[in-house]
């Protein structure tokens, strides 16, 4: 075999972003775990240069606190990055949208990892809408090298525009490895406060001024999109169809045609706002357009508009591509008329293998005593939350009635108690509790709502790979500090030999006409293994 390429480093899309940020002079990485974004911060936590350069790299309580911490660092003139999964941006959206109004000082990059097909999420929302909503530029890499290069360039772009820049990636890229070549390491910044003292004070008078300035910047953003080397036009002779392609879908198009010698004219979008003139040109020269984009039909919807101008547009909305889920070389091939029928099919003997709680998981024992205490109480409801313990929804437990968004267990339980339902239980993990359960518990305590909150403290953020939980070592004090009545506060151990006792404690609190909190505390098996290994 001959030497084909110079050796780089094999990195996940997530890791390429982390390395690029470090190389670009990052001073602080902030974030809350969430698949598929978690490996970005994990990489920085292990990177020797982050340790040597004292780059901030601890997990934050939630995405909103992370975003604001990153903004605070940017205020001081340093480069910061905040990472999260797509639904995390819902949590951080107040800070995000307003950071576009304040603008930034040091370069600030907001990295959001979307999860089309919901491999490990409760929805497949498309973060590109958020970038447009906030009027900030967005970069969407298709390869690991682009993830690196875009991240590296984004900080400078952010500083030049005095705006946060968003980088959107999807599961496939986040969790796929390829060789990445690095650029020169840049020095970290020095503290320099913003020259305009009012920039970050969003009193209406200032905010109005800032907002107009933000709208004025849009002209600049559009011309940057047109000049961007990441937005490309490819010639093609068959003008019966023009193709607009975005995100990792570009890889699938190249796969199908064996490179970039496309038969049809192609416009590739990877820097937003959408480069309007490039698309207009394509629309003029082609009979119809096929839009291939990972996520929602964001560009396709823009093209269709409301008034029918006779433009023929195919894509996820027209049914040419599946409306939901991740794209693949196969779905893209099918839209282009290729035969994608397989040679072999999945034999009937193959059974589903859903995930289940690990052997010896503390949550198992917690659900066993919960189910026992609620036996024969048909009117009881259990509002749960997001974490490993959501698997309590599946057999053999069938123990929970809801899982909506992080923190929603306690608050929905309160709503149900307000509706007169008894008994009502909230089941929440320790990390989810500090993420956004605390404020809900304050509501309940304030009204002494008759709910029993079961906090499953496994001393880890297990679901996403057993990261440290900031609740560890302080959960009891935290809960009591919020004002829970000590008479109705208990710490139990979810173990077989404690089962009867735990059932008893729970039954007693279910009968209490007020807020009770029970912490069920035993460490996650995977966290133990990790700490040993």
């Amino acid at each position: 075999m001959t030497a084909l390429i110079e050796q780089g480093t094999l990195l996940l899309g997530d890791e390429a972003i982390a390395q690029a940020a470090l190389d670009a002079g990052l001073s602080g990485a902030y974030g809350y775990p969430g698949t598929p974004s978690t490996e970005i911060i994990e990489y920085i936590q292990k990177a020797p240069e982050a340790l040597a350069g004292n780059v901030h790299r601890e997990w934050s309580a939630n995405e909103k606190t992370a975003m604001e911490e990153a903004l605070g660092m940017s205020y001081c003139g340093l480069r910061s990055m905040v990472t999260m999964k797509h639904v995390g941006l819902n949590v951080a959206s107040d800070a995000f949208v307003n950071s576009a109004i304040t603008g930034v000082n040091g370069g600030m990059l907001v990295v959001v990892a979307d999860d089309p097909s919901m491999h490990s999420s409760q929805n497949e929302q498309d973060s590109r809408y958020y970038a447009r909503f906030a009027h900030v530029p967005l970069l969407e890499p298709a390869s690991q090298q682009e993830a690196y290069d875009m991240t590296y360039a984004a900080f400078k772009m952010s500083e030049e525009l005095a705006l946060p820049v968003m980088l959107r990636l999807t599961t496939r890229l986040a969790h796929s490895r390829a060789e990445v070549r690095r650029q020169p390491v840049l020095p970290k910044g020095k503290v320099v406060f913003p020259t305009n003292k009012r920039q970050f004070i969003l009193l209406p008078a200032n905010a109005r001024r800032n907002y107009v300035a933000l709208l004025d910047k849009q002209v600049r953003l559009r011309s940057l999109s047109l000049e961007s080397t990441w937005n490309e036009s490819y010639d093609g002779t068959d003008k019966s169809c023009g193709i607009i392609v975005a995100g990792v879908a570009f890889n699938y198009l190249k796969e199908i045609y064996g490179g970039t010698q496309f038969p049809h004219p192609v416009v590739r979008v990877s820097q937003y706002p959408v480069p309007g003139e490039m698309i207009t040109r394509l629309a003029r020269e082609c009979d119809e357009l096929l839009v291939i984009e990972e996520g929602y039909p964001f560009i396709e919807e823009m093209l269709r508009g409301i008034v029918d101008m006779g433009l023929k547009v195919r894509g996820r909305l027209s049914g040419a591509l599946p409306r939901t889920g991740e794209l693949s070389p196969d779905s893209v091939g099918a839209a282009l008329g290729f035969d994608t029928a397989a040679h072999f099919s999945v034999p009937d003997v193959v059974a589903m293998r859903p995930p289940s709680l690990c052997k010896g998981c503390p949550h198992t024992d917690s659900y066993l005593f919960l189910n026992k205490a609620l036996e024969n109480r048909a009117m009881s409801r259990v509002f749960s939350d997001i974490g490993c313990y959501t698997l309590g929804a599946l057999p053999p437990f069938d123990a929970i009635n809801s899982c909506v968004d992080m923190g929603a267990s306690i608050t929905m339980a309160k709503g149900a108690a307000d509706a007169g339902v008894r008994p009502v239980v909230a089941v929440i993990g320790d990390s989810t509790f500090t993420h956004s359960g605390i404020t809900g518990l304050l509501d309940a305590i304030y009204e002494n709502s008759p709910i029993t909150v079961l906090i499953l403290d496994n001393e880890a953020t297990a679901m996403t790979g057993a990261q440290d939980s900031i609740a560890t070592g302080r959960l009891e004090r935290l809960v009591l500090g919020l004002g829970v009545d000590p008479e109705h506060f208990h710490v139990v151990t979810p173990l077989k030999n404690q089962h009867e006792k735990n059932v008893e404690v729970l039954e007693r609190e279910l009968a209490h006409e007020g807020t009770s909190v029970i912490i069920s505390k035993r460490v996650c098996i995977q966290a133990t293994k990790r700490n040993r290994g």
Partner: protein
Amino acid sequence: MKCDLIIAGVGGQGIISIAAVLAQAAIDARLYVKQSEIHGMAQRGGAVHSHLRLSSNPIASDIIPLKSADMILSVEPMEALRYLPYLSREGWAIANATPFENIGNYPSMDTIRAAYDALPRHILFDADALAKELGSPRSMNMAMLGAASHFVEMPPEALAKAIHARFISKGERIAELNVTIFHAGREVAKKATEKSMA
């Protein structure tokens, strides 16, 4: 050179190590590599798989298109079958015969064997037993990698080197043991193909 593999198994069975060794050896041989994995809830015994693509030309897609994988390599017998639509007409299905039964409706081994028998090219062997016999039950995945390597256009020494490098942090003895088990797995595939040629 082009080799597209789907590596399958159950969370915790070590498919990541297989992919990592192949990928590193390919990088060392100056090949292009893409390795994509879906490991959502891997730690809890669900089905997991990885798409590994090696090529002397640039690789576009992180996912292997349907009906084009050169191999499905599975550390568990039922799991390989889940990905059959990816297998090319000439592709190989290579799987460990020891089932990982953590579900109530796990099919009988006879029906699983029948599904393999319906495939033109397959190797089903007990990699658990082989690894155990050679003194390291946990190295079953390296036996599977060995079997796969017989069909991958890459010198076995390069793979052995990558295995050694991956396990050396656990000591020279463990590293050597993994290399030995890799070679044993390779022999199994060699013999199986010789038999089918004859």
